[in-house]
């Protein structure tokens, strides 16, 4: 058999892409899914793609989910690659979550509180029984309506803060960093860490947050408050000198309240872990808050022993676009390096055989 060097990579790539497009469409007798359907009916998938893709645009996210055949990491990658090409007109003012148009707001640390507990559209108390009626078309029964209460919904940490029982919120420490523009430097400050977590992989943060609950860097957390709803995004163009409203986005915020016994310089008080994620993404916001607090171990004089407390470990490995690229690059050809390893192992085996022979001859 003669050696035929591998040619035709270009045609192979084209053919693979064509096959992929066909597979994506699936059986052509089944109606094609529309972006509006994805955006409306697969909203949590769209939310996750927006969060990890770091781009708030439900329509583009729906397109990405469709293009990626529902592979949400691939969808986030598509959004990320698109967002880097966009010009940056302005940085927004900090969003004020106290002014959120609330859809859901619960606190685990108070039985009742100003504004009340509001369950909102949650899976929490659904019984996880497959609902076979969803397999057929049909509208759900109407949900009950109530007049919106005009009650203020102060954030739970602000309630606790009045007594000085909870540490102050961080902030006013200059302009926040942006890890999509400037490379990470360590020790990374909390603003940059929070940015990394907000873009980070839900599964990774979930596992790390969970690990802190099982003894790997425990933070004694209480879910101070979880709120989800619409907040207003404002920018302040320098030529105007006042803020203008550029739109509303849905976000989920989690404020963890964590026990802290105090230190030489600080009396005992509660500390914070913070999570904020695009869309309705409660699991991620809670996990983010746990990991944020765990990463503050060094700052608060706690011993750093667990993965979730190691800032470099968490921040370097939370990005699933980086992770998937590098894990999957192992399928690229590595035969040149493998060849040098082969020769190396052969040489070492020859060496070992010579040593063994000499030992035998000496006997």
């Amino acid at each position, binding site marked *: *058999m003669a050696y035929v060097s591998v040619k035709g990579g270009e045609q192979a790539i084209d053919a693979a892409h064509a096959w992929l497009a066909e597979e994506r469409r699936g059986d052509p007798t089944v109606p094609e899914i529309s972006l509006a359907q994805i955006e409306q009916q697969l909203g949590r998938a769209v939310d996750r793609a927006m969060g990890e893709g770091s781009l708030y645009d439900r329509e583009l996210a729906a397109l990405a989910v469709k293009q990626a055949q529902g592979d949400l990491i691939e969808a986030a990658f598509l959004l990320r690659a698109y967002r880097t090409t966009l010009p940056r007109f302005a940085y927004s003012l900090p969003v004020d979550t106290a002014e959120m148009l609330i859809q859901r707001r619960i606190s685990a640390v108070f039985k009742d509180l100003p504004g009340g507990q509001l369950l909102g559209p949650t899976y929490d108390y659904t019984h996880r029984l497959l609902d076979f009626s969803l397999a057929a078309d049909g509208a759900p029964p109407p949900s009950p309506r109530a007049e919106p209460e005009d009650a203020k919904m102060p954030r739970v940490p602000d309630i606790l803060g009045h007594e000085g029982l909870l540490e102050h919120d961080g902030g006013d420490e200059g302009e926040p960093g942006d890890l999509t523009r400037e490379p990470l430097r*360590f020790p990374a400050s909390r603003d940059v860490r929070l940015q990394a977590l907000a873009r980070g992989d839900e599964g990774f943060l979930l596992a790390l947050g969970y690990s802190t609950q099982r003894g790997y860097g425990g933070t004694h957390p209480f879910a101070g408050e979880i709120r989800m709803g619409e907040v207003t995004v404002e920018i302040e163009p320098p030529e105007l000198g006042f803020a203008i409203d550029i739109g509303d986005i849905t976000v989920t915020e989690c404020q963890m309240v964590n026990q802290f016994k105090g230190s030489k310089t600080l009396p005992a008080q509660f500390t914070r872990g913070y999570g904020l994620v695009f869309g309705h993404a409660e699991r991620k916001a809670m996990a983010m808050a746990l990991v944020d607090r765990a990463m503050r171990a060094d700052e608060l004089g706690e011993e750093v022993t667990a993965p979730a407390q190691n800032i470099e470990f968490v921040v370097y490995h939370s990005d699933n676009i980086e992770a*998937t690229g*590098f894990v999957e690059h192992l399928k690229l050809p*590595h035969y040149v*390096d493998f060849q040098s*390893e082969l020769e190396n192992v052969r040489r070492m085996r020859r060496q070992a055989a010579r040593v063994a022979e000499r030992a035998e001859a000496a006997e």
Partner: protein
Amino acid sequence: MRTNGPLPMNGYNFAYLDEQTKRMIRRALLKAVAIPGHQVPFGSREMPLPYGWGTGGIQVTASVLGPDDVLKVIDQGADDTTNAVSIRRFFARTAGVRTTTRTSEATLIQTRHRVPETNLREDQIIVYQVPQPEPLWRLEPSRAETSRMHALADYGLMHVKLYEDIARFGQVSISYDYPVMVNQRYLMSPSPIPSFDNPKMHMMPALQLFGAGREKRIYAIPPYTEVRSLDFDDHPFRAIRAPQACGLCGADDVYLDEVVVDDRGGRLFVCSDTDHCAERRAAGHVGADGMQDAAE
């Protein structure tokens, strides 16, 4: 004037990256050239190709590429490996530059895992794709700690690793990504090229640029810079290659791929550098398996 290449893609800047980003990367490159072997952090952008698949090299290439450049892209020494094809097409599409497979014709060469066999010239630039720019990463995972070690030129850890290899195996067990000392100052990863290629980096007339996209680092070796593979006086560096000659062109001083030709242990050794092999065959060199190849 643009020649031969297809027209660049609509809606995107020349070579994909916007000019501000290119300027940021060029600044990092200038710093890297000024401090040979030193890793310069840069604001690596998210590219439309995955991390780990050459995003660092692509960003460096995009930043130094001009319309008159002739681009060659290789992976494992070959122009026709799928990822090399993909990256070459990316630039043909976004920059419309002329591409080539001939080393001597290229002004810019982007590579993964190999240095071409043909000696490079002063008017050429070679861009390496780098998965892991930190040569000390296996010994010390914290980048805060390794930056300190580089600042102090504290490379004892690596010397101990080489010493332990020799004590245990009678030789250094690293066969690729073999650490080098650049300009007698910075320990550097040559990227995962086989150690066979390390000596080519030493006093190379071409500018060598290294891009690590996922790790967000750029580094460089200016032309005619000293690059020494780490070793000991009594255990000098030895490049590893298969001892055979190329079956197609007969070259016995090049790096070889081992191709499995049957399921009975049959092997064919051929040049890893496909252009070098083709040039030699065109010049009339024939290897032991070359006649058979031509006859069929």
